[in-house]
């Protein structure tokens, strides 16, 4: 969901299924009807639910006891989340002798979960030892369905030592039972300074008829819900069902007024940098990368509030090399490794020591490189100040299935009308 400009946001396999001709002859239809009845009789069992409670410490210890490192780790991540030369992973291999396989296979939480879910339900391994998912509804489903391995924190000393307190024990995963953060980012307003001449500060700009037809919003329910709630002055974490309804009504009014041009996925960043939309909901790292590329885009966390999300590393059930996975996860929490990652990813790092490391590095550089790195270290998009953090809120995360359905229904009625 939160990766910089990756375009194939629709799973090709799904596309093929959707676009294939479904023609059949008349006789086939009758035959199909007969077979369908047979299929009903055969597969009348339905899909079994597997809702799980949080694991007991003894269960966690039991899982990890006797587990050894295997010398191999498979890391499934989002595009542009690791330097091209795979530097940090190579260092890891040199030091530990663990061979890595790094795959950029996650492009969207929903489609990744949608594809993985049947396999995990059937008890088959995904073939990945680490996967990275955002703290949204799909991650919650992974936890609730028992598709994740509870982490052994005794083997994560760097995380314990180096992660900032606000990145520990998050509401979406108490005690970091299943996950530790990979990187965080902010959802705010991205705008094109060629077309928008005033500085944007308030979320109301997204609802301003002055920008009719030139406003982009996000298609994701959790993202857009937060902005509807901010516009009404409601904190997402404290919002009630009645508040969701009010937010959905506010967003529908914005849509019906012709203010919204489109509900975007990752493609918003191209739309705003080309000028198809002038201002839009956006993700901090995307905008920062475009700024460095010299494009006329700016990013602001609105004074009413912005969203902070976190992409998290986790071990899926059935992973073949869990110990190696833990070792790699912990390795990425070394300050100097985290600094190398942050310099490339340009989102928010959970390791505060990175700021000093990069400042020191910038001091040793010259010319353009020095300026670029200094700009990054100074940027509130990469290193938000404490004042910035007070404006940042998590997603609305309904826990009950009925509430999830109601929530999705309300906001999808806006984005998919």
């Amino acid at each position, binding site marked *: 969901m939160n990766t910089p400009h990756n*375009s194939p946001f*629709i799973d090709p396999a799904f596309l093929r299924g*959707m676009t294939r001709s479904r023609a059949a002859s008349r006789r086939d239809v009758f035959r199909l009807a007969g077979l369908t009845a047979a299929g009903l009789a055969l597969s009348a069992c*339905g899909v079994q*639910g597997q809702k799980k409670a949080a694991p007991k410490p003894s269960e966690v210890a039991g899982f990890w006891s006797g587990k050894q490192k295997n010398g191999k780790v498979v890391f499934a991540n989002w595009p542009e989340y690791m330097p091209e030369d795979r530097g940090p992973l190579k260092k890891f291999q040199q030091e530990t002798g663990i061979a890595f396989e790094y795959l950029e296979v996650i492009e969207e939480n929903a*489609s990744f979960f949608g594809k993985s879910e049947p396999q995990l339900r059937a008890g088959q391994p995904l073939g990945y030892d680490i996967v990275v998912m955002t703290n949204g509804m799909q991650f919650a489903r992974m936890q609730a369905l028992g598709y994740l391995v509870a982490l052994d924190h005794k083997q994560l000393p760097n995380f314990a030592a180096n992660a900032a307190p606000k990145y520990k024990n998050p509401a979406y995963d108490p005690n970091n039972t299943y996950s530790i953060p990979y990187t965080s980012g902010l959802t705010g307003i991205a705008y094109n300074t060629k077309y928008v001449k005033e500085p944007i500060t308030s979320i109301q700009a997204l609802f301003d008829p002055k920008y009719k*037809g030139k406003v982009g919003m996000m298609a994701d329910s959790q993202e857009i819900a937060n902005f509807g709630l901010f516009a009404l002055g409601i904190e997402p974490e404290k919002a009630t069902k009645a508040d969701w309804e009010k937010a959905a009504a506010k967003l529908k009014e914005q849509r019906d007024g012709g203010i919204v041009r*489109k509900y975007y996925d990752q493609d918003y960043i191209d739309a705003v940098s080309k000028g198809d939309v002038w201002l839009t909901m956006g993700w901090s790292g995307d905008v920062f990368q475009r700024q460095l590329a010299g494009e006329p885009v700016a990013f602001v966390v609105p004074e009413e509030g912005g969203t902070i999300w976190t992409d998290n590393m986790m071990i899926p059930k059935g992973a073949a090399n869990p110990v190696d996975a833990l070792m790699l996860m912990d390795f990425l929490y070394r300050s100097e490794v985290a600094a190398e990652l942050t310099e490339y990813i340009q989102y928010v790092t959970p390791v505060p020591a990175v700021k000093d490391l990069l400042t020191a590095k910038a001091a040793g550089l010259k010319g353009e490189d020095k300026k670029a790195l200094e700009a990054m270290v100074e940027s509130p998009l990469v290193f938000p100040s404490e004042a910035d953090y007070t404006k940042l809120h998590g997603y609305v995360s309904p826990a009950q299935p009925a509430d999830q*359905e109601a929530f999705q229904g309300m906001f999808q009625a806006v984005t*998919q009308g």
Partner: protein
Amino acid sequence: MRRAKAAVAPYLLALPAWIWFAIFFVVPIAAMASVSLTTGNILEGFQQTLSFSNYADAVGQYHVQLIRSLIYGGTATVIMLLLAYPVAYWIAFKGGRRKSMYLFLLLLPFFVSFVLRTISWGFLLADDGILFGPLKSAGLLPGDFHVLATDVAVIGGLTYNFLPFMVLPIYVALGRVDPRVIEAAYDLYASRWAAFRKVVLPLSLPGVFAGVLMTFVPATADPVNARVLGGTGNTMIGNIIQTEYMTNNDYPTASALSFTLMAVLLVGIFAYARSLGTENVLEAAAR
């Protein structure tokens, strides 16, 4: 003994195909039909309750997008037909020795992935892009003119993406028309128009039918063009099915919508076959 073997041989030869068909078509369809009648949710599981109301609920909730998809698919198909027939006619009768080159040129863009081509249209048609940017600065177009995020963009994208699947079957049908039949029409004092209307057109109808079949069905179900080129209020049923399946993990609703779409398309196609007056048009098209 030998005769018995000869009698069994065709069945044995067809067997792998039938097994393939059974495993990869019949079983998934039957499973999907079964899932479409279940109730529940991803966390608590889905139980088979033969809940036919899933269909009524899904159609009630998404009839707007369903009807919109049929209108988009139908409009695109008509435009494709109007564009494709003259092209196919020209290649078949005037193409001469370069026929295969023209066909190759027609297919050339389709060596690029479907999604990429659609995204490229997004770049070409950008509000201040390489096409509209200069026209706007020259004052030939109003500043707020845009094509992206409109019905026109989505229908245009559908038309572009499926056009060859309309041209090719019509071309094949026209290629099969015996020139002597046309000559005979002229010998019987038919004008060029009458010869076309009474001889060439009827003989090409199986190709038209096949073309419509191969374009209307995928165009109506397509989720890509609406997603990439559309705006608010252009969501098609394919997008809804994708969201229901991937985002909401509401497998029963997604399955029920898929079956509804399939049923609507089948009914439409058989009604169309009837109206063409060609009872065996499917077989004719398959020839």
